[in-house]
């Protein structure tokens, strides 16, 4: 029984990313359980691309993903909020200057 548990725990969770067509990024579409990456790819094809939704698939073990804390009050993202000079609208350019 203990061994059975161990084997069951051996089916890791994979996150699935699909490129819907050439020229676009891979986008996260969900997750699935599989024994290894190769099986995860096959299952991802059957599960997430039954209707031509993809031309390329990535699978990544969920445990290998490092993630920021999702809370938007998180100071992690604070540095990007206080640098208004990174945006083009920060700069005043006279109206008559073309192509700016």
């Amino acid at each position, binding site marked *: 029984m203990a061994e059975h548990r161990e*084997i*069951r725990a051996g*089916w890791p969770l994979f996150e699935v990313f699909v490129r819907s067509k050439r020229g676009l990024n891979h986008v996260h579409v*969900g*997750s*699935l359980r599989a024994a*290894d990456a190769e099986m995860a790819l096959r299952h991802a094809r*059957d*599960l997430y691309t039954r209707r031509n939704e993809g031309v390329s698939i990535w699978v990544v073990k969920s445990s290998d993903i490092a993630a920021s804390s999702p809370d938007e*009050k998180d100071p992690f993202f604070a540095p990007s909020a206080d640098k208004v000079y990174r945006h083009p609208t920060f700069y005043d350019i006279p109206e008559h200057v073309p192509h700016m």
Partner: protein
Amino acid sequence: MSTTTPEPSLEQHFEDVIARDQRIEPRDWMPDGYRKTLIRQVAQHAHSEIIGMQPEANWITRAPSLRRKAILLAKVQDEAGHGLYLYSAAETLGADRTELTENLIESRQKYSSIFNYPTLGFADVGVIGWLVDGAAICNQVPLCRSSFGPYARGMVRICKEESFHQRQGYELLMTMMGGTEDQRRMVQDATNRWWWPSLMMFGPPDHNSPNTAQSMAWKIKRHTNDELRQRFVDMTVPQAEALGVTLPDPELRWNDERGHYDFGEIDWAEFTQVIAGNGPCNTQRLAQRRRAHEDGAWVRDAAAAYAAKHAAKHAGKHAGDR
């Protein structure tokens, strides 16, 4: 340290996100009740998709043409896919997939009452697509705006696929209605048997639905059971007329004042019985699911052993490279 405004509490932040109609995502703080309610609902929904494969799979080997067989296979495969999208969403809430399957086969969690009715003829396949999937669409379209991100995204994907399910069913019925007298009788008979159970799919009436108010406050649900049921009836009556079948309810008639169809009283005693496990097929459905799970154990074990062996070989090879 001077006068910084106090941080709003986690709970306040959660409430604000809901109030702004934004989505809650898996790693956000959420009240225990919200998590519990969602796990219950998403798991129940996933189980319904998985059990829902059985009534129609019953006819795959006996489909009357290769075309119908291919369609039915694709549809049943979709139901499996829908179950897996939903288990995936449930896992983001901290539920364990193996445990969810065990909860289903040990009857600790429920699935939709509708799948405990038998599919007695091939017309049932069409009526399931038309009425059962039609009711599911009514239920699921508003869930695409559910407050929990992974659930809402799963529903978007599912709803896109359900449209094929409903249309193939209706087309099948139109074909039969254009056939022999016997075929038309089969369609009417299947409609008679599935109409009331389809109305029960929306759950108990609002005055007897204990979870609805809280689920709506959390924007997990967007409409009450009775609202969705009425919407389904209003949508379906003209479809029945176009098809040429009679819906088995003598009280069904247009109410000009309400701008809706009135319909008869649902047999809630039957609903309670089916939910309690005493429907025509409850035992059979669960036994079949359990058998599939147990018969598949050696495949899962073998795949895991194969993966472990290859991982070890790979690791050994890399160690040797150094």
